[in-house]
């Protein structure tokens, strides 16, 4: 005879230590077993899309910073590319290089938070602080160039807000050399820790076809073992010039597509980002970074959908221009928004503690989910 237990509805969030912001999850649980997860969004809804309609094209850039606030450069990048595509602007070589280096630095910084908070959710608070220490290095490199630590407003339509700081190249190289050993330390401290593996391997398995059907992207998709990276498959900017690999989940510790794979993909991606930075940082050509910025940003009538590989996945900007100085419609295809949808599928039949691990491995940023 099966033991009948009463269902309990557990309300996790919006104020909860590990929902990564103000996400509210309604868990239907049976003992500790979760039957159903219903995410409720909108607690951080700041009307980005409505705001953008009232702004001029260049004024939207600071708003894009606030989408995925852990990877603001990527957001600027995507938006700038979309409008540039709409207007047919060719940006100078120097700008392209600086953009790529910045975006990759930002990717590392963002992954550091993702990995750290995934570990912290599972209980390892120390790696979290180590990773934040490393993130500080990146933030201060970027701060020196553009003056802000989080919300940069750095990549403008057609150019950059500032040229790089004279120390930038030296400090970036220093960081690359500093950071390589710390990845090894992180691996020893957390990735290959037996308890961490137990908590993440074979948990929240996401098969490839489900992942694609749900539109998952970024490390969430690559963790399922498919080599799909927009930097290689739909190259934008100058990513096709660099030699880098696309790490995918291989099921090293359990099944392909489990939490550990998604976690590991992020670490390996940081190594690849370092490779890109190393290749790019020596070859920055000379030039003026603001020469291609149009005096008056007034794109022709048209529609554009431009996507970039943000740390969390495919960030797409769908912009309709009606030929005025204000965009007619800006829709953001936020990677976290789409990835979060998978949560309901992954969490069925897991324990409450696994929900945390799965949510951490999907790595959402609520600023982006709710926009």
């Amino acid at each position, binding site marked *: 005879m099966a033991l009948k237990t009463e269902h309990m509805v557990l309300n996790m969030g919006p104020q909860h230590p590990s929902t990564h912001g103000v996400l509210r999850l309604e868990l239907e649980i049976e003992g500790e077993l979760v039957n159903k997860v219903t995410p409720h969004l909108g607690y951080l809804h700041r009307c980005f899309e409505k705001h953008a309609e009232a702004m001029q094209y260049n004024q939207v850039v600071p708003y894009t910073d606030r989408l995925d606030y852990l990877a603001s450069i990527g957001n600027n990048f995507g938006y700038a590319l979309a409008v540039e595509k709409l207007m047919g602007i060719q940006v100078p070589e120097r700008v392209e290089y600086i953009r790529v280096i910045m975006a990759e630095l930002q990717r590392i910084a963002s992954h550091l938070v993702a990995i750290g908070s995934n570990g912290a959710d599972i209980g390892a608070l120390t790696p979290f602080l180590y990773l934040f220490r490393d993130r500080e290095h990146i933030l201060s490199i970027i701060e020196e160039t553009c003056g802000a630590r989080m919300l940069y*407003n750095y990549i403008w339509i057609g150019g950059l807000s500032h040229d790089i700081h004279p120390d930038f190249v030296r400090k970036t190289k220093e960081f690359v050399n500093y950071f390589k050993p710390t990845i090894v330390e992180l691996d020893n*401290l957390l990735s290959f820790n037996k308890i961490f593996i137990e908590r993440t391997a074979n948990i929240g398995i996401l098969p490839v076809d489900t992942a694609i059907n749900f539109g998952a992207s970024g490390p969430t998709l690559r963790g399922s073992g498919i080599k799909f990276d927009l930097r290689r498959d739909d190259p934008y900017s100058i990513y096709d010039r660099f030699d880098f690999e696309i790490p995918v989940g291989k099921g090293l510790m359990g099944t392909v597509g489990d939490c550990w794979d998604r976690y590991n993909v992020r670490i390996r991606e940081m190594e690849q980002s370092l490779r890109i930075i190393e290749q790019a940082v020596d070859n920055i050509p000379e030039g003026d970074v603001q020469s291609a910025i149009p005096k008056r940003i007034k794109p022709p009538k048209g529609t554009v959908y431009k996507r970039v590989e943000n740390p969390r996945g495919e960030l797409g900007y769908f912009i309709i221009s009606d030929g005025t100085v204000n965009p007619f419609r800006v829709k953001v295809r936020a990677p976290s928004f789409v990835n979060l949808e998978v949560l309901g599928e992954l969490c069925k039949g897991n324990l409450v503690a696994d929900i945390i691990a799965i949510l951490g491995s999907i790595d959402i940023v609520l600023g982006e989910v709710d926009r």
Partner: protein
Amino acid sequence: MNQYFKNTWLGIYTVLVGMKITFKHLFTPAVTIQYPEVKLKLPERERNRLYVNMDDCIGCDQCSRACPVNCIEIETVKSITGEDLGTTSNGKKKALWVTKFNIDFAKCCYCQLCVFPCPTDCIYMTDVFEFSEYDRNNLVYKFATLTEEEASEKKLNFEKFTAEKEAQKAEAAAKQKDEQKPAS
């Protein structure tokens, strides 16, 4: 069975590896600083509180229009003939009395978009970042150098001036009419 012992071994071994790493860190010096006593040197491009050098401001309103959050409020009064407002440091002649130049730092998003269009480089970001207040109204910084009386005086002057001008115009127009009338 093999897996069983392997698990046991891995469990103990990886824990010891982790402990070794944290033990090493026990003796590394702290990377944090004691904030109010020790402060980091901020880079020169630091984007924090805005400052407006009113001596140079020509009241062109470009910063206000560039602001995505509308936190800059500028009100200007045209100068009347005979008033000398001086020139800015890069040689531009001022033509407007800036009677109001308020920046609401509660709204400011520190995007620096207002700094670039300024023709005289009079608005810029400083490295002052500690300016918290208990009252939100205190975050509205008033940069205009004119006192209220002066401002109202200027306004009055301008109104008088325009009124005079208008009157003159009206007179001239009337004269013209008068002149034109007989012709037609």
